[in-house]
């Protein structure tokens, strides 16, 4: 025979799903949020996001090329771009570029590549970067520019975020402080201060809908987080009106961004639907606990990182139901 036949084991066809499709799919899902952040924060947002994405991609390339001495081109798989975008979304729009670069180095270098690159990192790299910055540069990381300043970057005016108001209300024990909060519609569309990605809950929800439609993520994690937060903060609100109403809690801060995009990260979340629900409920619980009783106004990133650490444990104990298995009672 002139030509050798190819032999391999079945299956001989593939579903054409790929890492790129999923990673860039998430990036596409972030576009509404990207546009709203550009709309509200203007140049500042553009500079922060560009710097973050560029730095993440550069560090991934440099580390693979010069430290791991690998010829594999991993930056094209889209994971570094996504980490950069998510990191940028977690930063205030008036953050100097040098801090962003440090954040990107920690996110990619420490959060991802030290563990072996894509698929091996136990913690969400973007969150590792963000938390590192939050702990190292608490002042810069917690002064939030007021939306609507198109041309401003480092010189942008800042104001207290809704989360800070909520914290203040709890500390003072005076429910009237909460009246300073913007109403739910503003929170949904995005007329409030905060980091880039958390301005508009609506834009994030559109992104989530897109990801669900393309089957990039399943509903388990986002829904279980949001539902838990809603129920718990609702109970607290009923107990004492000093705690903000559950709708406000859902729409403020990084909760939406975290629930839709950070907690659903493939690598660091559990594999089985049952495990994902446990993971989501625990994140929701921890977030409410940290927001209400902790020192920081925002608890989402800490909650996700803590649950990332539990993911292997959840994977070990939450087995899918085997076919034909008789459930023991």
């Amino acid at each position: 025979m002139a030509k050798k036949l190819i032999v391999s084991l079945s299956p001989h066809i593939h579903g054409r799903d790929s890492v790129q499709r999923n990673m860039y799919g998430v990036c596409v899902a972030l576009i509404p949020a990207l546009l709203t952040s550009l709309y509200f924060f203007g140049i500042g947002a553009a500079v922060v996001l560009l710097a973050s994405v560029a730095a993440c991609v550069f560090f991934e390339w440099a580390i693979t090329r010069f430290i791991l001495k690998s010829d594999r081109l991993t930056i094209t798989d889209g994971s570094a771009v996504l980490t950069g975008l998510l990191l940028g979304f977690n930063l205030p729009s008036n953050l100097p570029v040098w801090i962003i670069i440090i954040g990107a180095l920690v996110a990619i270098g420490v959060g991802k590549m030290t563990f072996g690159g894509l698929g091996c990192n136990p913690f969400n790299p973007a969150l590792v970067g963000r938390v590192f910055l939050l702990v190292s540069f608490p002042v810069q990381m917690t002064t939030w520019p007021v939306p609507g300043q198109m041309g401003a970057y480092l010189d942008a005016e800042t104001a207290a975020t809704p989360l800070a108001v909520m914290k203040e209300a709890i500390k003072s024990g005076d429910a009237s402080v909460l009246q300073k909060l913007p109403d739910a519609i503003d929170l949904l569309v995005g007329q409030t201060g905060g980091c880039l990605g958390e301005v508009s809950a609506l834009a994030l929800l559109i992104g989530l809908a897109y990801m669900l439609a393309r089957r990039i993520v399943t509903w388990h994690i986002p829904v279980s987080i949001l539902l838990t937060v809603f129920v718990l903060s609702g109970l607290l609100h009923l107990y004492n009106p000093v705690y903000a109403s559950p709708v406000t809690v859902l729409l403020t801060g990084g909760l939406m961004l975290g629930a839709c995009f950070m907690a659903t990260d493939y690598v660091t979340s559990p594999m089985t639907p049952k495990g994902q629900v446990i993971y989501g409920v625990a994140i929701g619980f921890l977030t409410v606990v940290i927001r209400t009783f902790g020192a920081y106004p925002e608890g989402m990133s800490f909650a996700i990182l803590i649950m990332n650490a539990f993911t292997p444990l959840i994977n070990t104990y939450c087995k899918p139901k085997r076919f034909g298995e008789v459930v023991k009672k």
Partner: protein
Amino acid sequence: MKTFKIGGVHPSENKFSANAPIRKAGLPKQAVFSLYQHIGAPAKPVVAKGDVVKVGTVLAEADGFVSVPVHSSVSGKVNKIDAVVDASGYRRPAIFVDVEGDDWEESIDRTPDLVTLAQRPDLTAEEIVKRVKACGIVGMGGATFPCHVKLTPPKGTKAECVIINAVECEPYLTADHRLMLEKPDEILVGVTLIMKAVGVDKGYIGIENNKPDAIALLTEKAKAYPGIEVVPLRVKYPQGGEKQLIAAITGREVPAPPALPIHVGAVVQNVGTTFAIYEAVMKSKPLFERVITVTGKDVKTPSNFLARIGTPMAQLIEECGGLPEATGKVIGGGPMMGKALMNLDVPVCKGSSGLLLMTEKESRRGEPQPCIRCGKCVGACPMGLEPYLLATASALRKWDLAEEHDITSCIECGSCQYTCPSMRPMLDNIRMGKTTVMALVRARNAK
């Protein structure tokens, strides 16, 4: 609409040959009969070089209970008994027959008339099983398990229903679909024979609803056969898996091995097998020809052939307009579970349901990337296993870990690898781990 609950995927169907009526393939110049056309002990040759055989003559007889005889599909002279690379990819002993004319054994009833069970009230269950074995019938969906073994429920078990597997969930293949459209009455009589053999009065025919014409035709015809019900099923791979089909139709799940379908009261037979059973019992015709789909994106005329067992695949390809230029891979069976052939001289065997010619571009696997732990394989596995874990355990030779996570339950359907975004060759490793673990378990049980 019914379907199974856990996992599953939706490969694109590509049933190019669905409208091509079954046509007879030409006689080969030389037919090759592997002695390993079924699971179990290989058949023992009873002919020698130079013997003259007819169509239907026994070439090799069954060696034990889990074994079936092999019949000649052609008339002519035995040329030699030698090893040949068959569809399994291994070199195995086979009987070579040089074809001369087309002379059939007289015992075979070649009339096209339908014979129903009512016309043969003398047939007992034992008689049916005996004839099925004597005619060398095996599961024709691809597993090639000797049919009479399934029709003989082990002691302590009781069959409650017969399920006919007419799902044909593999993409590209249309052999069963065409057979249902062209021989509906024969198939229905076949079902009554199986029901009689295992002593039940309920029979289901499971058909996926991408074959509405077959569903309509069989539902209409089945009205004349009490106890037989056609069950339309939602399209989902691997619905044709025995366990998935039982779950889809009866809602019962067969427990992990060593449990068999009979433990939930089901006897499953492929629709092609059902037709073969009809011919064997009513027409005394041994299994020496079968319907096989020859298809592929570049194939000129994708066709369904009624081909004699032992015909070289190359001949069928010729009859479809020749081997396309850019062929990279030739698969015996469907694209999800079929086996890539080593060469084109491989003969058609009892389990050959299709021949799929894939282009070079389609056949290459993508470059594997690191596992991103997305869990899509876990979601796709119809057995509720964790393929990513089993693949890693097998690759690292951690057999005890693989066994602990039920690697032996894997049905090798390929859904995990099909769905993996990182294109990891999961099933390669799992299959290797499964065979190793099963060997270890056997060795342990033997002690």
